């Protein structure tokens, strides 16, 4: 979540093309520059790997939330139908798990979806009152931005600017937060 609490002085390389920025990430890293983050108007496959971001663990969260939905439904049906107020309907046992499959399935999906989306929002620091950290307003339109945190790099500003330009950046701007 380093991008959420970004502060300080950044160099922002602006690229026109997703293939160029993907190649640039490798070139810039090879030149010894630490990249803060890349911003794009749409997902670029392989970019997270090139940047060295760890694989998302959202799947684990989704599974656990789904499991909690399954257990909730199992408990709810068992408690109400065979413990709190047992009733025989249609000649079935008061506890007949097969009949509860639809409810169990729906609650599993519901808990899983809501829990996962909630986890996604929290882990990315997204919320209605969050002010977005935009390194360049055009990155939600047609440009791709590579942000370099100057305080985390030992190279001088001019050298980094040259590396960015060599990697295909159309322009390099300074952004101060």
């Amino acid at each position, binding site marked *: 979540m380093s991008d959420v609490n970004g502060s300080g002085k950044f160099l922002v390389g602006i690229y026109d093309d997703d293939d160029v920025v993907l190649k640039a990430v490798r070139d810039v890293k090879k030149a010894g520059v630490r990249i803060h983050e*890349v911003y794009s108007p749409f997902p670029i496959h392989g970019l997270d790997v090139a940047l060295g971001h760890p694989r998302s663990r959202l799947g684990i969260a989704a599974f656990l939330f789904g499991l909690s939905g399954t257990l909730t439904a199992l408990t709810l049906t068992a408690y109400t139908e065979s413990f709190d107020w047992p009733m025989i309907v249609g000649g079935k046992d008061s506890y007949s798990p097969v009949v509860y499959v639809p409810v169990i399935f729906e609650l599993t999906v519901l808990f899983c979806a809501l829990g996962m989306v909630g986890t996604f929002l929290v882990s990315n620091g997204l919320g209605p009152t969050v002010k977005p950290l935009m390194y360049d307003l055009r990155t*939600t339109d047609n440009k791709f931005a590579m942000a370099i945190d100057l305080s985390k790099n030992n190279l001088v500003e001019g050298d980094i600017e040259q590396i960015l330009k060599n990697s295909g950046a159309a322009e390099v701007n300074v952004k101060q937060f």
Partner: protein
Amino acid sequence: MSHVTSAVRTPLITGGKTYADVTEDISRQVEGRPTREWTIAFTISVIVLIYGTACVFWTWWEGLGVWGLNKTVGWAWDITNFVWWVGIGHAGTLISAILLLFRQKWRTAVNRAAEAMTIFAVICAASFILMHMGRPWLAYWALPLPNTFGSLWVNFKSPLVWDVFAISTYFTVSLVFWYMGLLPDLATIRDRARSKVSRYIYGAFSLGWNGSAKTWARYEYMSLILAGLSTPLVLSVHTIVSMDFATSVIPGWHTTIFPPYFVAGAIFSGFAMVQNLMLIIRVVFKLEDYITVEHIESMNKVITLTGSIVGVAYLTEFFIAWYSGVEFESYAFINRATGPYWWAYWAMMTCNVISPQLFWSRAIRRSVVWTFTLSVVVNIGMWFERFVIIVTSLHRDYLPSSWAMFHPTLFDISDYIFSFGLFFTLFLLFAKFLPVVNMAEVKTIIKSSSEKLPVSVSGVAKGERVANPTFNKDVD
């Protein structure tokens, strides 16, 4: 045709669009003043909605006696309309979830509007559930609340309770899926906004999205899991709706074929409604480069397939009614086709089974006028299907002295009209204030599916692009 991915595939985006063009073309209608056509359509919808709302309140005030129901036919237009709207609500999630798993790229241009349609259709369907309760203030009795709330625990063995869970889960998950898909586009509108008010509103709804690589990676992962969840979910919804009938003992309802047959019918009618809406949207918002004849043809193929499945189901039902040797079952089906409701049965057969077969012709499949007309016909047919299943199965009761007919009253009709007012009011609001095409997703397919690649999109030479092995592939 200069094509990057493969010369065999027809392009999904025409007109040589750049990334900036996509943003501009789609954002235009959100940022501009409402057009005259929109204002007229919206005014009519709101008037219809006001009239319909008054009628619905009158229905509740007077009681369900204002409908044409009688002792024998206790379910008629209310449940017909409910099943019809829920069915229509199946296309959106099918397009966004199942077609995502099948990697059907054409889905990117139509999924946003189709998902919106799904959500509004489910709202319309739910309104009939509330209506047919007669006492909507007691609707919470359908929820599993402790006995001290005034009723017993709900009966978890009843398909009607399964329906409560299925419809509410489906609505919630579809809404969440749709809203998550909107986040990047809301951020685009936010960053382009000129006025403070719209920057604030779109800013709040875009939740601070900034498109970082880490967010995108997680976002893609989440979308994939949501699609995986929604796929069985969408199939479960109409399965459970069909069980409302199939688990009963009424001849004509008591059929094991119902779940797959209802699901196919739902997709069939849903795609027909998507066609109707998209054909209007693409002209009014000038999106012919994004929603092309290829899209229309693809959806018509789905309509032909599902329509044929429905046709096979009709014939199977009829065959089994005879083959089973059950007199009551045979009578129910012969009565459907030749009894007093023969016209409804044959309207259903003509509209659902016969007319969609015209789509085997490529020229008709690619014709806008034919597609629009046949889609309307399909939805008329699917309404009749539900009417036939519900009313003709009920109107011949066990005792001939109880046989009856159903005659709709003004309020049956007006409450149905209400749902159209509600649907189109919501849809027009969506079409004005939110981007109707998913800009971020369309941008991802520009390079692989564009008619010709504009030079300004790329800084890479074309030869290099073709030679780049990662370019044409989906790397997950």
